[in-house]
């Protein structure tokens, strides 16, 4: 294993926080809109951003892939979206859950919340819950918007409408704060979603990234793509001394020596920096895999 390669890997792991700030800013470039009220209405919004970021956010530069998927699939004209699925597959292969770890604003929020000092609870015993996000993906994002339609063939974007806490946090709340009309429109739907947001926030302080682990449909999709992603993690069998530090430091409950491209791994790089023999590193490329 190249000592140089590992230096780059460690570098990436150390500066993840800064990349997250940059990604959040780029995803939400139109900051003045928070004070002006209103949203960005330019052509940039035809393009999806890689992370979970609602297009109702005043500052949003692009469209949320999950929201966009539901809106296409829920319209009477289409029942499936090739554009968004193609985009997600491409993102999945090029970056996989690196997006979750480095580029998603809501992921960054959970990271920050988890830094709040208090007794932290482990999610190791709650592994089965990680399957819930796949149900959320299939049911609320794909099936329900396409199948539960009115007499004109129009469906509701179920995840956006009833569940997504990101939309409440960066869309509904800032807009209602500045626009009296929108404030008057807030009703039971908003209240229910606000409760979901508060629960996610509280859980994020106690657990590490509960939304990413158990609920996020976008994370679920990228998790499926982790195994075929060009961006991966590899462990050099010659250097590994099986000390178990990497597995202990992993907050997503992944043992990188056993499954380096596990669907739960968000590529945060903690294991890379924790390894005493520099055996763990990021790798980018086609089909490369060192022997274990």
């Amino acid at each position: 294993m190249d000592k140089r390669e590992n230096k780059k890997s460690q570098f990436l792991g150390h500066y993840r926080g800064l990349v997250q700030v940059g990604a959040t800013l780029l995803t939400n470039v139109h900051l003045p809109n928070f004070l002006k009220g209103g949203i960005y209405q330019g052509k940039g919004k035809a393009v999806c951003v890689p992370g979970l970021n609602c297009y109702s956010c005043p500052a949003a530069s692009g469209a949320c892939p999950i929201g966009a998927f539901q809106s296409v699939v829920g319209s009477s004209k289409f029942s499936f979206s090739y554009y968004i699925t193609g985009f997600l597959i491409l993102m999945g292969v090029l970056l996989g859950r690196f997006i979750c770890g480095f580029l998603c604003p809501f992921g960054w929020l959970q990271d920050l919340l988890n830094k709040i000092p208090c007794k932290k609870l482990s999610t190791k015993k709650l592994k089965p819950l990680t399957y819930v996000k796949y149900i959320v993906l299939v049911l609320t994002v794909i099936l329900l918007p396409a199948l539960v339609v009115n007499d004109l063939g129009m469906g509701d974007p179920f995840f956006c409408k009833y569940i997504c806490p990101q939309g409440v946090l960066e869309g509904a709340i800032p807009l209602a704060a500045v626009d009296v009309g929108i404030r008057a429109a807030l009703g039971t739907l908003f209240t229910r979603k606000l409760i979901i947001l508060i629960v996610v926030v509280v859980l994020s302080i106690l657990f590490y990234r509960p939304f990413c682990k158990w609920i996020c449909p976008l994370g679920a999709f990228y998790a499926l793509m982790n195994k075929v992603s060009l961006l991966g993690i590899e462990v050099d069998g010659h250097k590994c001394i099986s000390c178990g530090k990497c597995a202990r430091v992993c907050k997503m409950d992944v043992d990188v020596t056993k499954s380096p491209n596990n669907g739960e791994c968000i590529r945060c790089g903690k294991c890379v920096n924790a390894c005493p023999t520099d055996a763990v590193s990021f790798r980018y490329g086609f089909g490369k895999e060192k022997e274990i």
Partner: protein
Amino acid sequence: MKGGIRLLKTKKAAVQLIFIAAGVGMLCYGVMHGEADSVLGKAIRLCLECVGIG
């Protein structure tokens, strides 16, 4: 043994290439069929209920 791993490596590379091609292909197909316009339309004109304001 070495040959087996090599096969695995090329198999994986092939799968990755197929996914990339599929991703790009589907993306272009969708754009050509007006899906991007549909996304733009919904993203700049918020259906309030759809984003949970209601």
